[in-house]
């Protein structure tokens, strides 16, 4: 019942967003779109954290996904959203499947730092690549969505928001199902005791590999959706501070449910927007204070507010 309750809540939230979004001011719809994109990335982070791994380099896939989608127009003249998202998924899956061969051998700070190193390599490459705009990046355009022309129409912003929300819903439901499957349950078992998992006949390395690739795909999707929402990409997406934001939101959210990353991302984005609006010179202080409060009073993240017991309920 608990499993289905999560899917029902996700569906109700999705339906509410799709119905009420057209009545929201543009800036609010944009804020929710950005929060959903971040939420998708952090959903992947959550999968890794449940496996006992913290990546300080998920900006790599966030940026890779964005560039995989964005470069289709300058390279091939493609501006179809589905193809752009498909490209992000394929590139991130391919790159992560290769990098995971190395990363799955490391744990703790070594995993975190190695993943950070890979993201900074991409940052360095993009900064030096003038054909991709170097540090300035370039603009990304979506002209069609499943063949329907949307560029410049009155409902363009809403459609991008709706697609982002729908994809976020699909990702959340799939990850929720996965975490409750036999293989998904191994994530927490690996975090607790790798030796025992091997002595029960399961492969720790293969499970970490799979979870890492899934996490990278989610980060890539989040990056691609962010690229089409904002309409611009630059190498900052791979910079370590971007990866740090994902870690920040993960801690803020907690890992108790697939709903948590979206809640955390929405609160993070709201605090950042309002703090930037009302205190442009000290907005980082507001974020820092929020983090401090969460760590002091909700060490299990915001999601622990919704849990009755210490166990992961959803």
């Amino acid at each position, binding site marked *: 019942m608990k499993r289905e309750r999560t899917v029902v809540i996700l569906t109700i939230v999705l339906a509410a967003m799709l119905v009420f979004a057209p009545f929201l001011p543009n800036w609010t719809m944009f804020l929710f779109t950005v929060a959903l994109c971040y939420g998708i990335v952090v959903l992947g982070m959550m999968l890794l954290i449940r496996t006992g791994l913290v990546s300080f380099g998920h900006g790599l896939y966030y940026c890779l996904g964005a560039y995989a989608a964005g470069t289709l127009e300058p390279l091939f003249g493609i501006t179809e959203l589905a193809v752009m998202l498909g490209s992000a998924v394929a590139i991130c899956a391919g790159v992560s499947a290769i990098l995971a061969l190395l990363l799955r051998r490391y744990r703790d700070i070594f995993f975190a730092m190695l993943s950070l190193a890979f993201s900074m390599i991409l940052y360095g490459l993009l900064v030096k690549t003038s054909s991709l705009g170097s540090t300035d990046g370039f603009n990304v355009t979506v002209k069609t969505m499943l063949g329907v022309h949307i560029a410049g129409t009155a409902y363009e912003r809403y459609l991008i928001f709706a697609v982002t929300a729908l994809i976020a819903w699909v990702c959340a439901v799939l990850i929720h199902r996965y975490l409750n499957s036999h293989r998904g349950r191994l994530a*927490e078992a690996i975090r607790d005791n790798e030796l025992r998992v*091997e*002595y029960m*006949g399961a492969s720790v390395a293969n499970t970490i590999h799979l979870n890492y690739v899934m996490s990278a795909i989610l980060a890539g999707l989040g990056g691609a959706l962010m690229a089409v929402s904002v309409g611009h990409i630059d190498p900052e997406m791979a910079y370590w501070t971007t990866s740090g934001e994902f870690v920040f939101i993960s801690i803020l959210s907690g890992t108790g449910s697939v709903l948590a990353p979206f809640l955390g991302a929405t609160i993070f984005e709201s605090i950042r927007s309002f703090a930037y609006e009302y205190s442009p010179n000290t907005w980082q202080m507001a974020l820092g204070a929020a983090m401090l409060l969460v760590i002091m009073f909700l060490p299990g993240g915001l999601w622990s507010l919704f849990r009755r017991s210490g*166990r992961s309920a959803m």
Partner: protein
Amino acid sequence: MSVILESRQLRKTFGAVTAAADINVSIEADTVVGLIGSNGAGKTTFLNMVTGYLKPSSGSIRFDGRDITALGPRQITRLGICRSFQIPQLFDTLSVSDNLLVGVGIVASAGKNWANAASTQGTPSDAVETMLERFGLQPYREMAAGTLPEGVRKLLDIAMAMVVRPRILLLDEPTSGVSAEEKFTLMDLVMDAVRAQKVTVLFVEHDMEVVTRYTHRVLAFSEGRIIADGEPTTVLNDAEVRKYIIGETFHAKRRGGHAQA
């Protein structure tokens, strides 16, 4: 009875130290075998080689006629050799039932790649319930494994080995850290479960009362070698075993009759 596990000229050295020296042993199916010896005698090294944690320096191990010397722990577990640990290896943040469900899930996911999967009956939750009942763990089912008392942790550790459908179960000091009052209760539960699943058992034990009561056969280790092999009363009354392992004051006599097949 047919031989299920066999080691030939099994040797393990760590630099100049010989932890196991030319161990030749055949274990018959459906027996309970005790491994005794002082600390550093080579019992756990033997267990670790059988389960693939340590690779032998030379020699071979055959399980059910198949050479498993080069296999790793995961492949050996999948063939049906499972183990428990001296210090229980649990998933501390998960509940007792979830600890068992992880194992049930692994067997279910492996399907035909699991040698003894055919013996699994019912749904995953049925398998968990059966194991909770067999090991008397129902009162603790929702408790996090990290919060359990030591005796219950030991039981759960063994139940986690049993839930993945072993044909041979290796127990490393199952009663260590368990109070004198609890040790026979624990062993009775384990032996009942073992009989229910028709599992061959090898266990390392320092408590000679437990060894006498529950085994059909005893292998006595000293300095990496087997110095005595036979029925418990015979081995425990052996002059060398008394001198090097159990001391002169212990008098072995079978009690309780739990070891009868």
